[in-house]
């Protein structure tokens, strides 16, 4: 009998159930693509909801987009694009076996990702503070519906209505702004969670790289984590214009 079922003919990174490194790599890559397909459908539900509501309540959406700070969104777009670039470079570096540079580029990617989250943090805290919140919390600063909304709230909304060129007085705030911000917070919130998970994954890959697990022959994890990161980036590329730049 084959008593050496555990002994390997291949290199140490080859898991026992694979025959060749190429098979292992192909399987991992295919698995990741399948997972990404899953992610796309996960977000697609939200995009569909977005499309439907925007179709029904165009005014609410156009005013809503003016309540978002397109400059902050723009900065974040640039940051994420840059991080995608460094991630791709990291893959390249690890493919040629340059361990030091891989670490450096992965580190840079993490720094960008944090930058993104910091900007998001400021956007969110401002909205919560003013009371630009979804559903029943619309106009409730810091989720507290007991106190009246601060003047800032009325001002911002009025300014947004102005900017949207809808000739309605402040009394005519579209009801469905609530839904717009429901969609906004769910979409960007889920995206933000994906960014956080990405940070964790990249940090983990960076550590494994430092420990010398990857080489020109074996760098599958770097490759597939970068794939994931590109998807996170891609989703933002859609979110940004759809939420911030309509109208």
């Amino acid at each position, binding site marked *: 009998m084959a008593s050496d*079922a555990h002994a390997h003919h291949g290199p140490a990174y080859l898991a026992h*159930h694979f025959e060749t490194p190429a*098979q292992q790599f192909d399987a991992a890559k295919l*698995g990741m693509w399948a997972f990404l397909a*899953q992610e796309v*459908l996960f977000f697609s539900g939200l995009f569909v909801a977005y499309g*439907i509501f925007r179709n029904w309540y165009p005014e609410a959406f156009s005013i809503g987009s003016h309540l978002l700070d397109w400059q902050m969104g723009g900065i974040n777009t640039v940051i994420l694009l840059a991080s995608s670039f460094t991630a791709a470079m990291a893959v390249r570096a690890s493919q040629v076996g340059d361990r030091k540079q891989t670490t450096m580029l992965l580190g840079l990617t993490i720094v960008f990702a944090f930058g993104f989250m910091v900007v998001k943090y400021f956007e969110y805290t401002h909205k919560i503070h003013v009371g630009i919140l979804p559903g029943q919390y619309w106009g409730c600063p810091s989720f507290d519906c007991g106190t009246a909304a601060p003047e800032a709230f009325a001002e911002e909304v009025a300014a947004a209505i102005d900017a949207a060129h809808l000739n309605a007085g402040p009394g005519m705030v579209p009801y469905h702004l609530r839904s717009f911000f429901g969609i906004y917070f*769910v979409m960007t919130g889920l995206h933000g969670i994906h960014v956080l998970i990405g940070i964790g994954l990249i940090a983990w890959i960076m550590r494994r790289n430092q420990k010398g697990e990857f080489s020109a022959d074996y760098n599958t994890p770097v490759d597939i984590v970068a794939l994931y990161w590109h998807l996170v980036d891609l989703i933002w590329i859609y979110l940004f214009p759809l939420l911030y730049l309509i109208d």
Partner: protein
Amino acid sequence: MTVEAGTAVPSGDAHEGGDNYLTHETGLKSWLFTLDHKRIGLMYLVSVLVMFFLGGVMALLVRTELLFNGETIMEADTYNKVFTLHGAIMVFLFIIPSVPAAMGNFFLPIMLGAKDVAFPRLNLASFWIYGFGTIFAIVAIVAGSVDTGWTFYTPYSARADSSVIWMTLAAFILGFSSILTGVNFIATVHKMRAPGIHWKRLPLFIWGIYATSVIQVLATPVLAITLLLLIMEKTLTIGIFDPALGGDPVLYQHFFWFYSHPAVYIMILPGMAVVNELIATFSQRKIFGYMFVAMSSVALALLGFLVWGHHMFTSGMSEYATMVFSALTFLVAIPSGVKVFNWVATLYEGSISFASPMLYGLSFIVLFTIGGLTGLFLGTLSTDIHLHDTYFVVAHFHYVMVGGTVFGFLGGLHYWWPKMTGKMYDEKLARVSWFLVFVGFNVTFFSQFIMGSQGMPRRYYDYLDQFQPLHMASSGGAYILGLGFIVMAYLFWKSLRSGEKAPPNPWASAGYEWMTTTPPHPHNFAETPVMKRGPYDYHLCTEEELWDGFPEDFEAKKAKA
């Protein structure tokens, strides 16, 4: 070194204390943290059986309450919780993981001649996520329970008790278990096939599971996001589904069915996949029209995405949309028909044995045909208006889910039991329990077709007197069904305790999974096999390969001759 299957058969020594996956390691930990797909499959099997039992108990409570008009054993709000839990447990905890996660995990790699699935750790993670989701479901049950129906329709669900959040979270988590299993199987089927297993030699069981995986990966995330939005609606009131906040309850239904219609193919395709194996083995014949059957699985998987609106013909959707959905619904009948016709054609000129697994296989054909054809009454606009949300629908989906999937699952359980456990079971008892299940099932649910078309609405705690006789018949059938399952539980328990040792290939099958030892080697095959023939090529098999006893008996027989 490799073994050429098709010329060699399992080495005889393995069944006599040789290493197998059950004895390879011992201790609870060696199970809970195993990376072996067979052990994970077995753990899934035990879990889904427990869930089936729980869901079945709920079903019997439902039937007992409906035995008489008025309060029989519980109050109306309890009844609502019980049928909701029955539906939710059966769907999310039993039927979706049943064949794919339990039997798929066990047999997919073996049938591919692979040592394991592509991502064993992910596989274990799926199982743990399933367990985690189950905990949430239990919390939901304990914390006041859920009474929304398994569909969680808004706005009722948005306003109901907060344990709905636990139940939806459970379904959300279970969804991810299902997605990850799908991802794993897709990669495995594509990349882990042993030499000689090209796409045209892929066992039809694998074609079915593969198509299922595609749906799992593409449809389940939509359910996940829907449930997440529902949870957000309940906690943050984001105003997407609740009309009081500007949301749209019909949108929820679109989202829900966009997943849940494909999900019915997640349920039926694996059942059909098992039936392929049963029909081929027990008529000793290659499945007629192999490629058509394989492609019909893929066609069902794809078409299944286009018809969700047929659950919403009365919901207030536009006339135009209803028309499109009805037309597309009819299209799914075609690939289903292709399967049925080819199975019957496979019997033609076969050598048909009526062993217990085959009894389930043949019943599947009959019952699925009834279930599927009644689907056409529901897919037709004018008749669905009358039949929607009546017991006709309840009968339809039990015919496809129980008569179809559960019968397929039970057929697979009887068929692969010897391979999985290394023990044979009492064939006579198995036939008795099949008979009880078959008769009980038909009595339970056929009466519901008549009630439904006469206008008995579903999810009803009480009913008009005129439905009394049929409700009693239905409940009586359910008790017979329950008795059948008790006999079955007894026979499997007896088999585990004192069953005869099983030979490697007790059904004389040409399927790849029977080429290995019983119970299988920890790495499935001691050495990677090279397949020289397809899994149904009975005409190419040697007498030795189709030997249904122990290999050494075959040696003895040859020596004598």
